[in-house]
């Protein structure tokens, strides 16, 4: 018999273990329901709560902006966070633990696609309501989702395949300009191309085609780099792709019909939240499918030992070229979305600074990992927005953070993991009483 003092038993359990005990039996769908509840609270009661806590308005980015600007509002903001996010999430998550597990078990027996769609619908609902509070939130979340696509696609080259590519902003620019040219030429009255050729109402339905066209142009650009630089292994790709980045930039600067250095503006507002969300989900789904197949694992084989990969029947050159074009395609699509989110592009936004941002996200999040890319893109993106009031010091804090991560985890936060949607959506309690 175990006759130990209960007090002693309690104290042996650290706060971390207790937290894990609390969190472990909650399935993903439970969390999503909790988040949805919190967002609903904010949507309907946010104004009152912030008013009674003495806040000027609803804190847009989890209170970071408010707190950094006006330190006196710290208690109010924290109160808001607890009342609106903390408590509703905890209450819903804990009270719905059993039904959520039942639901997860039910979905687990269905096809993965069905389960994934249910989860995504819940998540999208929460996201939509959350972004509805302010236009600023909407912009931040759209740009973050585009950043996820960019990070994930460069991870395929730099992480999974182990080459070092620097041309992602170049691909992005090709996609952005191609998609913008198509939408402006056909569906908008603007200064560069004049009257719309087709009815503007059709524009939104043709937008995916414009995005795909942008992706294809970017992929062709990638082919131009790939043919000379994959003949041998080494630093050639880094150098050639960097050169490509500068060539694309100065090419666009000197092309008068796309506006030269002044850029293109007044793109139609096609990149709304559902569009960006859908394209991002497709991007994650397809890339994750690819890197988990034996065909995609060939990238890892090439990275770890190219000679062995070749001797084991892998056509290394073809694989490298196709993968490079594939990643560039997604960068082009992301660029197309980007142009229609900001509704303005100029060559200056696809320079070396954008490259630094993308590389920071991929190395921060973790190489060879879909989850890592998502985490890296979101955290760097949200962080750089949240620290905006610090102005120039932001660019000291974020690189410092990056250095710390590189010291503690040289391959990034969540590196070398497989993203398994089925595992993620599994019920977390083994015994669900019926």
């Amino acid at each position, binding site marked *: 018999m175990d006759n130990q003092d209960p007090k002693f038993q309690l104290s042996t359990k650290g706060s971390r273990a207790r937290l894990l005990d609390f969190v472990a039996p909650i399935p993903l769908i439970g969390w999503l329901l909790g988040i949805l509840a919190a967002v609903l609270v904010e949507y309907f009661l946010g104004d009152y709560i912030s008013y009674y806590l003495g806040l000027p308005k609803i804190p847009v980015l989890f209170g970071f902006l408010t707190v950094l600007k006006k330190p006196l509002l710290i208690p109010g903001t924290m109160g808001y966070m607890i009342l609106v996010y903390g408590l509703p999430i905890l209450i819903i998550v804990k009270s719905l633990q059993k039904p959520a597990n039942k639901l997860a078990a039910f979905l687990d027996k269905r096809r993965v696609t069905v389960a994934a769609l249910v989860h995504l619908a819940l998540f999208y609902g929460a996201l939509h309501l959350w972004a509805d509070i302010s236009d600023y939130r909407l912009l931040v979340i759209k740009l973050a989702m585009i950043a996820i696509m960019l990070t994930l696609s460069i991870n395929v080259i730099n992480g999974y395949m182990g080459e070092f590519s620097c041309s992602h902003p170049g691909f992005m620019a090709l996609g952005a300009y191609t998609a913008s040219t198509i939408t402006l030429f056909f569906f908008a009255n603007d200064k560069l191309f004049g009257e719309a050729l087709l009815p503007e109402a059709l524009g939104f339905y043709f937008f995916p085609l414009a995005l795909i066209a942008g992706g294809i142009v970017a992929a062709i650009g990638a082919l131009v780099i790939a043919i000379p630089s994959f003949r041998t292994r080494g630093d050639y790709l880094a150098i050639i792709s960097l050169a490509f980045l500068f060539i694309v930039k100065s090419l666009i600067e000197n092309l008068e019909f796309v506006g030269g250095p002044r850029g293109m503006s007044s793109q139609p507002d096609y990149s709304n939240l559902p569009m960006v969300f859908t394209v991002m989900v497709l991007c994650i789904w397809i890339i994750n499918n690819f890197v988990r197949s*034996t*065909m995609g694992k060939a990238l890892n084989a090439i990275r770890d*030992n190219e000679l062995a990969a070749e001797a084991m029947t892998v056509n290394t050159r073809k694989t490298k070229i196709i993968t490079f074009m594939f990643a560039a395609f997604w960068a082009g699509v992301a660029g197309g979305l980007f142009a229609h989110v900001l509704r303005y592009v100029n060559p200056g936004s696809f320079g070396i600074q954008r490259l630094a941002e993308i590389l920071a996200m991929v190395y921060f999040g973790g190489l060879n990992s879909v989850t890592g890319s998502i985490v890296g893109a979101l955290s760097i993106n949200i962080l750089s927005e949240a620290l905006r009031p610090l102005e120039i010091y932001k660019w000291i804090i974020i690189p410092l953070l990056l250095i710390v991560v590189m010291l503690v985890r040289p391959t990034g936060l969540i590196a*070398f993991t497989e993203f398994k949607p089925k595992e993620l959506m599994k019920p977390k309690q083994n015994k669900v009483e019926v």
Partner: protein
Amino acid sequence: MALLRVDNMTHYFGGLRAVHNYNLVLEPGHIVGLIGPNGAGKTTIFNLISGIHTPTEGNIELDGHNLIGHHPHEIASMGLGRTFQNLLLWRHMTVLEHVKMACYSQLEYGIWGAFFGSRLRRQEEKRLTAKAMHLLETFDVAGFRSQLAVSLPYGAQRRVEMARAMAINPKVLFLDEPTAGMTPDELNRMISIIRKIHTDFDVAIFLIEHRLKFVMELCERIQTLVFGEVIAEGTPAEIKNNPQVIEAYLGKEDIH
């Protein structure tokens, strides 16, 4: 008809003649050994036949197909599996992934299947997993299936590499020093494994080895290579008593 046939192969690295006038006839189901002192050019011969280097002169035929000028991956898919002297395993891949990877050229679902996860892909991946598991069991490493291959004990790593080479359905298997760094116990185990795959998979084997005991026991025919030239070829008994071989290995005898 010979399965693998090499005629008058010569190779120069710059001004250095690494291999000179090398000939090989490997009949189906035979085991041939290649022995010789360090630096004799044994691994170079492997690399020349498997397409990593292209020979300066000569002709190589596998099952009637000319191999000169083909990429290593094409030669491998024609049915030439090989292992490496210094174990070229993939650092971040599990044992099962290693063996499945070698089935790359047998994949039928294509790049679009990989992107969109078609039904054909699910069936193919299942089939390959089953095939890989069967191979892992043959080589006695099935228990390690989801571990990283590089984290395995040395002997098991050797066996994983051989399982990987067998996954490409080879007609000819090249083994580059399969017992390097092994204890006598592991050596005996390796002999029985090679015997087993030889009979079970009906594959011709061409192997490089330093340990004469191993070669004498396994091979039907042995070639001795010194400075890129074959100085003796024959049955194990003939090779053992060949004065030139003894000289190359032990130096000249001056007594009597």
